[in-house]
């Protein structure tokens, strides 16, 4: 089976890997790099559990071939906390009880990060629309929306709690 060289950056670390043409970015993240915080739900683009950021954009890693990510910067849930301090979104999810089983949480948080980076002051409807590709089977949607709403911009473009 032919192998292809793949260079990409995940959570700030540069990797050079060998992959098959048919492998997805999700396979690389979970199986090559053992970053299992990125979940697999449907494997067909419906649930959003596998969402990661690629060059800052929310994408579903089950819908992207690994080789499509050549040279890209990937952020997974493991890369969000800085020096042991949780990201404001992570704190907000904890404080608002926005996590039940937690399976959808990495995807929810990363999609929300893309939203806040684009639109620092989203309305409740903006949040609902943006998160509509992320399913929570524990159906704690209102808490999730509360959590994202509680995070507001601080000085200098960063986010903090309201």
């Amino acid at each position: 089976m032919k192998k292809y060289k793949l260079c990409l950056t995940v959570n700030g670390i540069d990797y050079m890997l060998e992959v098959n043409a048919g492998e997805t970015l999700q396979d690389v993240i979970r199986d090559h790099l053992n970053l299992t915080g990125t979940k697999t739900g449907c494997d067909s683009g419906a649930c959003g559990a596998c969402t990661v950021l690629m060059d800052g954009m929310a994408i579903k890693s089950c819908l992207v071939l690994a080789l499509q990510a050549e040279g890209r910067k990937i952020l997974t849930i493991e890369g969000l906390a800085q020096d042991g301090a949780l990201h404001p979104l992570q704190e907000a999810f904890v404080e608002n009880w926005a996590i039940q089983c937690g399976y959808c949480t990495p995807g929810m948080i990363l999609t929300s990060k893309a939203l806040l980076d684009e639109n620092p002051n989203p309305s409740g409807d903006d949040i609902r629309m943006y998160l509509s590709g992320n399913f929570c089977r524990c159906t704690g949607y209102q808490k999730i929306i509360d959590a994202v709403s509680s995070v507001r911009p601080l000085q200098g473009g960063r986010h903090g709690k309201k």
Partner: protein
Amino acid sequence: MKDMRYIRAASVTEVTDCLKKYGDKAKILAGGQSLVPLLRQRLARPGLLIDISRVADLKFIRKTKNTLKIGALTTHRQLETDPLIREHLPILADMEKQLASVQIRNLGTLGGNLCHADPAGDVAPALMALGAKLKLISATGARTMSVENFFKDFFETAIRPDEVLAEIDIPLLPDLGHAIYIKHSSRGVDTAIIGVGTFILKDHDTDTCKEIRLCVGAVGPVPIRAKNAEAVIRGKVVTGKTIAEAGKKAREEISPVSDLQGSAEYKKELIEVFIQRALKAASSGRRK
């Protein structure tokens, strides 16, 4: 899939050369949002993937005197947010807002959506209503085709194995021209149970309808025009009565097929209701 090979093309010429050499053993990969799931489920088993996603020449939105030209690799999200589109063809931004989730819109492309030819696709009925044309390029030359003639059957188009879809040309709306797309789905992110693209042009002096296109998606193998319903409206002043009559005609002339999103009986009801809603909204007079 095990011995599938992969090429990352850098230019249109490289794409067409590859297609010429490998023919129908090769498959183009754009955003991958439809093709990757097919590969995963072994529904597509190409020997070679030609990744065109880095071909810069296929990414543009350009305004000419009478048209907007859009490169096939333009993503759904770009169309949704681009200022030129919002100003000149807001129907497209509206349509994109209703298409899948933001993650899929970030990577999925206009060209990929058309070539995938999902009968429930949202792009096709909107572009058909606008009278858009497609530019297809092969190693031996280029040809142009209307969106209306592009779709042949479920997931089948008129594109040849040696061709790449390069560009979508959309005529700008004339003064007093109005175009809208409306969709019905169970949840926002689901594919359409029905989608209706509508274009209406009224006469400045008489307020009668000079031109009309009613394009319905998700009711059969390919998106279709409700021509009998159009005939009811064309040349007349659009009133509650003509709108009701057009809805009935559309219901009679279209025989929808059942799919995962809805039964044929249900779709039959929706055709009448949605043709009426589309006509009401499109003829309400707002420019564009």
